[in-house]
């Protein structure tokens, strides 16, 4: 069993090979390659317009790349190119083995439907048909993301920004995905709420052995969560490496600028 785990972790979960995307004459993303291993947290940092979100959309199969490939190791161990997946397979992957946490919770949640149903939706989509068990699992997950069980029947409209974001995380993790994409998950939250959310994400990632690709412009988020950092500028990856290495000893002038522009505490 241990051997098998070793082999499993030895192979990358997701591989991007010279990905590029252009919108007309604009090259949003050029020649991005990397591998992501199970349980690894990769932060993609860079300023607005550097191609982070475009890259994330290509990696999660929502946008077809103009060049290059993304391949993903499925639960059955077979690595497949995302472009060869049918729409049904891709959508199934998206709601079982993957999660996507949006910056704006309204995009990732059904705002008019109760929190319990929001968490339970993925379970019902994969064929759970027992109300009691769905509700039990939903309350379990609400507890894990520190939402009061008494609010399980309230719609997320009535939730605060931080709670919405935690609910979104619960909704994504309920099917025990192996890979979660996060697009600026702490954007628009105040600092103390951000800190609690990051703390929660960090413990969940460790507990569930999640692989995460997180897009952020906040270097503090990258420092707290990620193992590795990719710095993007003008659609290119200009620097990549271990988080502490890149942030404490940046090599590229742009990265140095980025790091030095953080206000000292």
């Amino acid at each position, binding site marked *: 069993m241990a051997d098998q785990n070793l082999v499993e972790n030895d192979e990358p979960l997701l591989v991007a090979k010279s990905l590029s995307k252009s919108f007309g004459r604009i090259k949003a993303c050029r020649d991005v390659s990397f591998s992501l291993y199970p349980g690894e947290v990769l932060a993609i940092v860079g300023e607005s317009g550097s191609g982070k979100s475009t890259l994330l959309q290509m990696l999660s199969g929502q946008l077809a790349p103009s060049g290059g490939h993304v391949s993903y190791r499925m639960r059955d161990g077979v690595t497949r190119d995302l472009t060869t997946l049918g729409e049904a397979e891709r959508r199934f992957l998206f709601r079982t083995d993957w999660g996507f946490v949006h910056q704006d919770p309204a995009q990732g949640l059904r705002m008019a439907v109760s929190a319990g*149903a929001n968490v339970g939706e993925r379970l*019902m989509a*994969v064929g759970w048909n*027992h*109300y009691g068990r769905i509700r039990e699992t939903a309350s379990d997950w609400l507890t894990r993301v520190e939402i009061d069980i008494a609010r399980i029947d309230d719609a997320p409209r009535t939730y605060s920004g931080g709670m919405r974001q935690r609910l979104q995380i619960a909704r994504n993790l309920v099917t025990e995905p192996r890979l979660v994409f996060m697009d600026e998950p702490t954007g628009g939250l105040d600092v103390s709420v951000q800190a609690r959310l990051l703390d929660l994400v960090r413990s969940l990632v460790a507990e569930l052995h999640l692989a995460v690709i997180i897009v952020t412009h906040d270097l503090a988020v990258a420092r707290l969560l990620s193992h590795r950092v990719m710095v993007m500028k003008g659609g290119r990856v200009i620097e990549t490496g271990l988080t502490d290495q890149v942030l404490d000893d940046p090599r590229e002038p742009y990265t140095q600028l980025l790091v030095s522009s953080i206000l000292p505490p």
Partner: protein
Amino acid sequence: MNAPAYNFAYLDEQTKRMIRRAILKAIAIPGYQVPFASREMPMPYGWGTGGVQVTAAILGPQDVLKVIDQGSDDTTNAISIRKFFAKTAGVATTTATDEATVIQTRHRIPETALNENQVLVYQVPIPEPLRFLEPRETETRRMHALAEYGLMHVKLYEDIARFGHIATAYAYPVKVNARYVMDPSPTPKFDNPKMDNSPALQLFGAGREKRIYAIPPYTQVVSLDFEDHPFEPYRFNAPCALCGAENSYLDEIITDDKGGRMFVCSDTDYCEGRQAAGHHGSLSAAPYKEKAQEASNG
């Protein structure tokens, strides 16, 4: 001068062919919503323009037509549509379920069991069962195509979370032929079991939304539910006040402004048939009529 101003059954032959093609496709793919070029009809949307077009397309000179609205043969909507076809097609009309070959209905399935020689045509206001859960039409079509129906259970979940039981009482979603989830139009869920394995052909027409769908005879129709909250048809627990029926769907009728009410069969033909056969409920006028007759005779 003697030529009628319009074609048999109002619609022109090309339109009927177009509708028949849509109907054939709908029958071939049970529960699938087939788009069709719905026409303007001489009545407002919401009065059964979809059902009327389907009826017009399938009606032949030998057919006997029955039209019901909320179970009743005698409401405005039912009478006008019946007259419409009596005038434009010259077909025989009836109120008796077992004499009819085509039955156009709004909100009910007759209590009398249907047979293989009958077609039931439903008037449908909103054909898309996922409409209020997913606003995008492109997305709902994709969900149908990929049979992604988790969202339908979210609605039932919400019902239980809020009311403790599945509170959806009409337009209760069903799965047809183990494939497509379908909205049975606003029939009470009491009628859902009648759709399953029915010997009669069931056609659904939505005029404003321009969709036709169908359940062929002897097709499996399952109402969606949870294992621990199974589907239950709802019926107010009382006998019909006029005919005493214990198993028919009841309408509540307010009789005064002091809280008085009575429950009677919503299917008027069924109720009258039972009364004619000698069944009486607690508020039936029959005994008084007999007395009055005896008095006038004697």
